């Protein structure tokens, strides 16, 4: 580690950043007007149906303004990103891990790494409060919190040779805050994996088509792994094309299987799927990376990027109308069937990915800072990729809001609320204030060739239904609806299973690292018994919550999803606290609010949610009052619905206790990190000389590379001067 360096001399912001030509002013005014009109239409529409185009206008207009003005201001004025300062990629270039990567390529890698199933789940659940609260939070949250976090973490990690968030927390805040951050990451991993696995189990239960297609991805991935390992190493394109072709075949074949005599073999109930998931998770995570994980990762990345692009095109061509109300009554009552609790704080907990996602801080302080060419590209890569993810969340919200609201609630309310027949569901939905006939419910399931769509909680099936609606209106008509539905399920299942595998490995690695302090051999990642034990513990951890989630009489998603949201926002609080501390320590106190304000908001949301989850007297919201209610029932010998037996009653009591204890733990962790960060900031503010930064010393950069997606006139001239007139020369930009 080097000596603390004073903040380098301010770089002159590029000429073109300071002056706006009249033409540019007119252009940006137009963008602002389009965005504003979008918001006005969304906000004022009452009783009539609104086109999704207004949601797109509001989101894209706001993103453009934020990217051009706020993010640029942060990059040059607050962070004082310095284009003359060499990045770790340039200084430590080894051609493999550290390597200055073309900014547009790196944007692709970074986006593929941050965007996953998260932005497709949260917005769908939050749609129960209407499209407006979700849209406002996704757009405002990303602009002022999520994208700022990603960008600032990327910047500070770049200044520290790509150190991870945990290491930075330890170096800059202290061992206590660092340890709390580490424990938080581990706990979040467990909950995250459980919730994602639950989403998949809910989508695949009793669906022979889905189970067959997803099952086929395993032999396909094994084949690809073998191909890449022994036949033609490194030929990713050809093997991925083969893989995608086989995958599409598996989706089509799923339809045949579902109609054949094999259907019963592949019709698995949720409990059986949990066992298969746990076995899969364990085996996949102890197999060599090349066999299953690496090829799966290629497949899921191809599918992910391809589907997101298709969806964006589909939404723009189809321009569907939103059927959901702007704001439903569940925004004001605590009685929502999808998740309980009021708008504040629970919308902000439910939608994490897409607005503010703590997990991104791990990617922004992982691979990306080791590959970035210039500090001045953090806006394009950190802020830009997060805006793109936010756009994915907006599209997911559109998917949830274009389907019939009655169907939406029938799909997303737990079986305890709506029962298990189309008649009982239709009645229950009417009780919620929406309407759908039993016939329509049956027809909707038939359209996508599923036995039933009732209580398909977890977001994935709703998203798939919305997507199939959009795609089939563009290509193929109603006849292809079932194909597109299962295509969407497959696409989500594919990368959730990849995350389950990769996440189990990361959890195991962290666990081995922690246990290694007690028993040395555990640290050795090539010691097989250690690997197996640690893997079993991690799989057991998420497997427990998955099992509980599937069997919870109160519905797994509405119990567990708030915990996942709280955990994710807790990690964001850690990241924002680290950023704020660093801004203060590096003499940027005046501007520390850019992360301090989102931090305050995030802390308020997370702590309020934790408080309510622990202390609320409403049994639908507070875990302990829920526990008390059912415990009293047991003592009185009564079975309280939706529990059906005394066993159910005991399950509820156990689950609410575990969930309640976890809520307390999360809240305590966040308070420790915040208090430790506040202590460090207070010390530095009182005595600025005491600040010790673990920043790497300034080294002059020899690279020439533009800051943004498109080079400016001045940057083109600079590139031409070093003979790199036509980009991409070799990916390294030019050298002066």
């Amino acid at each position, binding site marked *: 580690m080097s000596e603390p360096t004073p903040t380098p001399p301010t770089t002159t912001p590029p000429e073109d950043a300071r002056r706006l030509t009249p033409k540019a002013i007119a252009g940006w005014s137009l963008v602002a007007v389009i965005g504003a009109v979008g918001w006005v239409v969304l906000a004022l529409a009452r009783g009539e149906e609104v086109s999704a185009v207004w949601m797109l206008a509001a989101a894209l207009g706001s993103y453009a303004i934020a990217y051009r003005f706020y993010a640029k201001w942060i990059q040059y004025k607050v962070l004082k990103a310095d284009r003359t300062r060499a990045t770790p990629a340039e200084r430590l270039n080894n*051609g*493999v891990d550290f390597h200055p990567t073309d900014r547009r390529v790196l944007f692709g890698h970074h986006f593929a790494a941050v965007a996953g199933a998260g932005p497709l789940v949260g917005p769908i659940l939050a749609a129960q409060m209407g499209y407006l609260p979700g849209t406002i939070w996704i757009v405002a949250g990303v602009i002022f919190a999520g994208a700022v976090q990603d960008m600032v973490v990327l910047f500070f990690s770049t200044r520290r040779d790509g150190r991870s968030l945990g290491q930075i927390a330890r170096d800059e805040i202290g061992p206590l805050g660092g340890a709390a951050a580490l424990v938080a990451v581990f706990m979040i991993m467990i909950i995250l994996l459980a919730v994602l696995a639950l989403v998949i189990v809910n989508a695949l239960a009793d669906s022979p088509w889905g189970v067959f297609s997803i099952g086929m991805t395993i032999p396909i991935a094994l084949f690809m792994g073998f191909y890449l390992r022994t036949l033609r*190493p490194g*030929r990713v394109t050809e093997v991925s094309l083969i893989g995608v072709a086989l995958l599409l075949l598996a989706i089509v074949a799923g339809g045949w299987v579902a109609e054949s005599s094999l259907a019963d073999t592949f019709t698995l109930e949720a409990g059986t799927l949990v066992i298969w998931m746990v076995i899969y998770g364990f085996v996949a995570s102890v197999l060599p*990376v*090349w066999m299953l994980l690496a090829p799966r990762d290629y497949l899921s990345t191809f599918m992910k990027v391809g589907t997101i692009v298709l969806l964006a095109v589909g939404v723009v061509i189809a321009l569907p109308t939103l059927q959901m109300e702007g704001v439903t009554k569940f925004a004001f009552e605590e009685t929502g069937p999808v998740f309980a609790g009021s708008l504040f704080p629970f919308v902000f907990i439910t939608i994490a990915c897409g607005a503010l996602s703590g997990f991104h801080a791990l990617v922004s302080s992982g691979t990306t800072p080791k590959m970035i060419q210039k500090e001045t590209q953090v806006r394009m890569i950190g802020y830009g990729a997060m805006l793109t993810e936010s756009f994915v969340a907006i599209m997911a919200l559109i998917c949830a809001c274009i389907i019939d609201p009655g169907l939406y609630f029938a799909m997303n309310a737990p079986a305890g609320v709506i029962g298990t027949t189309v008649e009982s569901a239709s009645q229950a939905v009417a009780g919620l204030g929406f309407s759908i006939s039993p016939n329509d419910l049956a027809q909707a399931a038939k359209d996508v060739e599923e036995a039933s769509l009732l209580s398909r909680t977890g977001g994935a099936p709703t998203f798939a239904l919305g997507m199939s609606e959009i795609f089939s209106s563009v290509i193929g008509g109603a006849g292809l609806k079932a194909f597109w539905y299962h295509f969407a399920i497959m696409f989500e299942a594919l990368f959730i299973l990849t995350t389950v595998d990769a996440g189990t*490995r*990361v959890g195991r690695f962290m666990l081995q690292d922690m246990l290694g302090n007690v028993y040395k051999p555990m640290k050795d990642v090539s010691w097989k018994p250690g690997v197996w034990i640690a893997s079993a513990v991690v799989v057991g951890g998420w497997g427990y919550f998955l099992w509980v989630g599937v069997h919870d009489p109160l519905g797994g998603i509405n119990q567990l999803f708030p915990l996942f949201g709280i955990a994710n926002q807790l990690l964001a609080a850690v990241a924002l606290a680290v950023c704020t501390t660093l801004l203060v320590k590096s003499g940027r106190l005046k501007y520390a609010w850019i992360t301090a304000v989102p931090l305050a908001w995030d802390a308020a949301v997370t702590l309020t949610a934790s408080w309510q989850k622990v202390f609320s007297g409403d049994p639908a919201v507070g875990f302990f009052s829920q526990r008390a209610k059912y415990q009293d029932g047991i003592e009185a010998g009564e079975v309280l619905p939706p529990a059906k037996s005394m066993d159910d009653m005991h399950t509820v009591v156990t689950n609410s206790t575990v969930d309640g204890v976890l809520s307390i733990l999360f809240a305590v962790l966040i308070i420790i990190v915040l208090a430790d960060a506040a202590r460090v900031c207070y010390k530095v503010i009182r005595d600025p000389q005491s600040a010790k930064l673990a920043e790497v010393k300034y080294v002059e950069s020899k690279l020439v590379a533009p800051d943004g997606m498109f080079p400016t006139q001045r940057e083109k001239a600079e590139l031409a001067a070093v003979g790199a007139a036509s980009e991409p020369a070799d*990916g390294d930009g030019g050298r002066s």
Partner: protein
Amino acid sequence: MTAGAGTAAAGRVRHFASRFRYYWRELTGEATYDRYVAHTRSCSPDAEVMTRREFERSRTDAQEADPREGFRCC
């Protein structure tokens, strides 16, 4: 259409195709090996260079040893 315009159009197509190829190879990671070879040779012309097979194995082994590298988010 003159011959000159035809050549210019063909040039543009070639230019576009080469750019597409470049980005495609970079994004899929196919170019990683070539970059490694170029980098190793540029440091020392007679340095030992792994074969493609060895190189790709060493990459998955590295991911095995530290799964945090290349982890993707939810």
